[in-house]
């Protein structure tokens, strides 16, 4: 067998196993409108996807993942609850020299079912765990909902919370914001000067030539926001420390849960998210997952997909640490809200890479 034939056979096996649970097969286009993907993922996707130009349809992308077309197909044609399975190539430009492939097969499973989201999370994870069990992989789990709750729990302005939540997925900018809001980073001299001039009642916009689309009203609105922010008290060191403690929780599920529950005693706003984590761990246990041996990392998934907003997971080959995750997934209600222009669907799912499975089985 050629490598592609072996991968295709492995993909077929995984796909049939998922379809056997009752999931509906779904197909997705290879050429997708670039605009939708760029609006969702930002300019970074342009570096990762193959962009091409169609004389009629404009900028198009070779399918970089299945999430968007599957969600769109469901929103157009589907009825809830729905469970889908799919199989096919995705294309990713590799910006670095090396062995990573720019074309590979994914097999996936997506669940659109709002009746019991925590049970749906556990259902997806348990299915993947059973499909991958022979490979002896390490599973990592996390919960973006805990991180969001920890930010929401800060005693600070809604504007600062919104800024932190927007950058939950960009740890460097998140850290810079936290340092600034906590008064730990010095105020840049130009900002201090600007604030001083405004405090003296100076019109800092007078005499400036305005060019471009951004209007003077928009600038004035942000100047007001800057003044208000300068007047708001810094986030206290104790609060920053509590947030960092939440971010750094990493242990087996029961111990991680106990640590977060202890933190929630000082931070009651965290309680609902911790309760949901506890219920999900129970659901996983009910499905036969050995939760005592399952890793939980509060910051897991922070640098992967922006729209994961709850449960996240990945499966890794410890024997080949250089490999990307063999499978990964999570809950992405926020993505459906953006794609649905306000109409949101509870959604959880994941993908397996049959090429990596075949390699670990030694058939490649």
């Amino acid at each position, binding site marked *: 067998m050629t490598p592609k034939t072996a991968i295709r056979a492995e993909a077929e096996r995984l796909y049939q196993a998922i379809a056997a649970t009752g999931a509906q097969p779904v197909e997705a286009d290879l050429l997708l409108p670039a605009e939708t993907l760029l609006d969702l993922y*930002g*300019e970074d996707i342009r*570096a990762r996807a193959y962009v091409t130009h169609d004389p009629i349809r404009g900028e198009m992308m070779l399918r970089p993942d299945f999430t968007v077309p599957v969600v769109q197909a469901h929103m157009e044609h589907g009825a809830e609850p729905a469970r889908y399975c799919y199989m096919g190539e995705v294309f990713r430009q590799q910006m670095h*020299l090396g062995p990573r492939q720019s074309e590979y097969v994914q097999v996936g499973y997506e669940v659109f079912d709002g009746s019991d989201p925590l049970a749906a999370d556990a259902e997806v994870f348990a299915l993947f765990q059973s499909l991958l069990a022979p490979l002896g992989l390490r599973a990592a789990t996390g919960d973006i909902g805990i991180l969001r709750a920890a930010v929401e729990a800060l005693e600070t302005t809604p504007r600062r919370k919104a800024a932190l939540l*927007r950058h939950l997925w960009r740890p*460097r900018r998140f850290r810079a914001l936290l340092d600034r809001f906590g008064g730990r980073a010095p105020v840049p001299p*130009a900002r201090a000067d*600007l604030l001083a001039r405004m405090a003296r009642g100076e019109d800092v916009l007078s005499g400036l030539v305005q060019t471009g689309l*951004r209007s003077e009203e928009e*600038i004035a609105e942000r100047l007001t926001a800057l003044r208000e922010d300068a007047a708001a008290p810094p986030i206290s060191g104790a609060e920053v420390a509590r947030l960092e403690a939440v971010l750094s929780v990493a242990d087996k599920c029961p111990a991680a849960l106990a640590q977060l529950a202890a933190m929630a005693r000082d931070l009651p706003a965290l309680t609902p998210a911790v309760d949901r984590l506890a219920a999900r761990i129970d659901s996983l246990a009910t499905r036969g997952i050995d939760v005592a041996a399952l890793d939980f990392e509060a910051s897991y998934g922070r640098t992967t997909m922006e729209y994961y907003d709850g449960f996240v997971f990945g499966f890794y080959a410890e024997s080949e640490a250089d490999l990307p995750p063999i499978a990964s997934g999570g809950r992405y209600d926020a993505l459906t809200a953006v794609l649905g222009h306000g109409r949101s669907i509870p959604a959880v799912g994941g993908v397996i890479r049959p090429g990596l499975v075949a390699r670990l089985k030694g058939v490649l």
Partner: protein
Amino acid sequence: MLKIGVPSKGRLMEKTFDWFGTRGVTMRQTGADREYSGTIEGIEGAELVLLSAGEIPRELSAGRIHLGVTGSDLVREKLADWDRQVVELAPLGFGHADLIIAVPTGWADVETLDDLDAVAAQFRRDHGHRLRIATKYHRLVRDFLTAQGVADYQLVDSQGATEGTVKNLTAEAVADITSSGETLRANHLKILSDGLIHSSQAMLFASLRAEWDAAARTTLAALLARIGLDTALPELSG
């Protein structure tokens, strides 16, 4: 034969010839004024290849030339993992230009990338599309903004007169090369205080992809000795 790629016209060519000339290696254009062929004197076994500065990175990457003179910005922009494809042998001390991010001077609230990021979020909310940054340096700008954690922007391609895009309402900010900053000021743009992406200058590069046979290596050693570069010879595969 050791092939050396040099910019084929203008000040970059003249300054490159001067740089080598003062170090005892004479390069000159041969034939008619506009003919792209040249010779090297002072070093045995070297051949001059006159090329557009913009094509030199690609020729180095393909290994069709052993050495090349071009801007450090062009190599970083055009080659993925540039430092695994070429080696910097020497900065040549001319062709200085900074790749920077600039915004309208009227934006009294913006001085830093942190501000630009906040404005990008506000702009997207108010205008329904991402804040546009005009540039021709897509890779360098995107890598920089990703590393800095700036979101909600989009790059729009601009191959010339980039400073005019803001006034013409085709972009809200620019990322462009500047040396004196005069064109920026004339177009009511100011540089972000932490918006320096890359300080570029003309640089002598060696290709890691070229075939470095014994003859090419001997010629390189002689050339480096002649021009007074005591840098250790890079690891070059034969």
